[in-house]
């Protein structure tokens, strides 16, 4: 059995089958939630914004045109919902690295530690760089779609992605060095105990 394309479902919603939106909600609530949570670091706000997106889809469903890729359309709504939210409730402070849980050097698998560092490196990026990486890497939008979403040229999208990656690498390196220093300090202060493993 093949799944109905998003575009067909959205056309049904547009033509009055509001219940069909439930299928689109199931498909998109987690990607949208991740888009917001990785951008804002605030899970409660992210859930609110996801609801807001689907409320807007219902309200503006008549503006959906056949042939419009649904993914690009919903992310346009998602971006606008976030912009409107922060226009209405300006942020008291931006997402700062101190707000993240600290990465404690542990003996856990190297991969786990790398993922934690990468997460922090991503959060340290300026919002527009983080957003573009999220859009192309996690939301799987095509560069053409991102260009139309951000209102810029295709080449500008490529340049921005590359710059975001460069900065991500820089952040990742700095964090990795910091963690290694902490590890060395910890090893210096607390003598290693032979055969002791944390369970």
């Amino acid at each position, binding site marked *: 059995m093949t799944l109905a394309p998003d575009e067909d479902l959205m056309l049904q919603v547009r033509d009055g089958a*509001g219940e069909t939106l439930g299928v689109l909600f199931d498909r998109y609530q987690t990607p949208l*939630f991740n888009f917001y949570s990785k951008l804002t670091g605030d899970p409660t706000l992210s859930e609110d914004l996801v609801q807001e997106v689907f409320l807007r889809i219902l309200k503006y469903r008549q503006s959906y045109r056949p042939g419009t890729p649904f993914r690009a359309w919903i992310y346009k709504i998602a971006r606008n919902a976030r912009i409107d939210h922060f226009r209405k409730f300006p942020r008291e402070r931006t997402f700062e690295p101190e707000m993240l849980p600290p990465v404690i050097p542990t003996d856990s698998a190297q991969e786990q530690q790398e993922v934690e560092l990468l997460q922090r490196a991503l959060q340290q990026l300026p919002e527009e760089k983080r957003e573009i990486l999220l859009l192309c890497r996690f939301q799987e939008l095509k560069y053409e779609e991102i260009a139309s979403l951000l209102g810029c040229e295709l080449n500008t999208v490529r340049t921005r992605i590359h710059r975001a990656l460069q900065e991500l690498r820089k952040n990742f390196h700095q964090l990795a060095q910091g963690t290694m220093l902490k590890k060395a300090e910890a090893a210096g202060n607390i003598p290693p105990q032979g055969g002791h493993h944390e369970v």
Partner: protein
Amino acid sequence: MKCEQITELLPDYLQGSLSADQRHTLEAHLERCADCSEEAALWKKLSLLPVDQPGPASRARFEAMLQAYLAGRSNHPADERHWRKRVSAWNWNVFHWLRSPVGAMAWSVALLAIGVFAGLRLAGPKPPSPDLAAMQSELTSMKQLVVLSLLQQQSASARLEGVTWSTREQQLDPQVLSALLHTLRYDASVDVRLAALDALSRHGRQPQVHKGILDSLQQDQSPLVQVALIDLMLEWRDRDAAHRLQELEQTPNLNPTVRQRVEWAKSKLN
């Protein structure tokens, strides 16, 4: 190939949209250049980041919103298709008339008038768009419908969610306010009643809300809600606050902590 040239090719390479020739050139560069190959490696590692999951109440909230929306729409007397038919029939008549000589003269005059009007309007300061304001108010009333729908749910967490939603709006419909007052008075869950009290206290300047909150002091049996109500009365410093506290103190079997709070509040009021 230099790193600057990579800027254009790397994003396409990462999305797998390079031609075979370009891909080979780029891979050859990646083998020699540590910086660029590290960027490509980081891109791949990004897929390892954990996927955050929305809370379990998220689906229920969506359902409540959808039901409220569908219920609201079915209340509209005019069916959309019916409207479309009427509009298209009207269009046809109008165009027929416009093509007659009298019509031609009339629409020339009308166009001139529109031109003059638009010129004057555009030269002056722009008023706020009425369309935008209408959309904004429609969205607000949709959210209030969601609150009403959530407050009637079986599950306490859904009702709690409804109360929380109501705090996101500056202005609430009288209907939502009375639903919140009903919740404060009759909801079986203490948590929901406490949240409703908190939400209502923001609208305490409205006489109906003010009175509803004060009246619930005699009704509520939960010490937690009673203490919250006493604190609120102290904050408001009403003229008859002391009298109401006195009444509460005379209630038989009053919880000792609440009695202590009443004493304390009375001393603060004096």
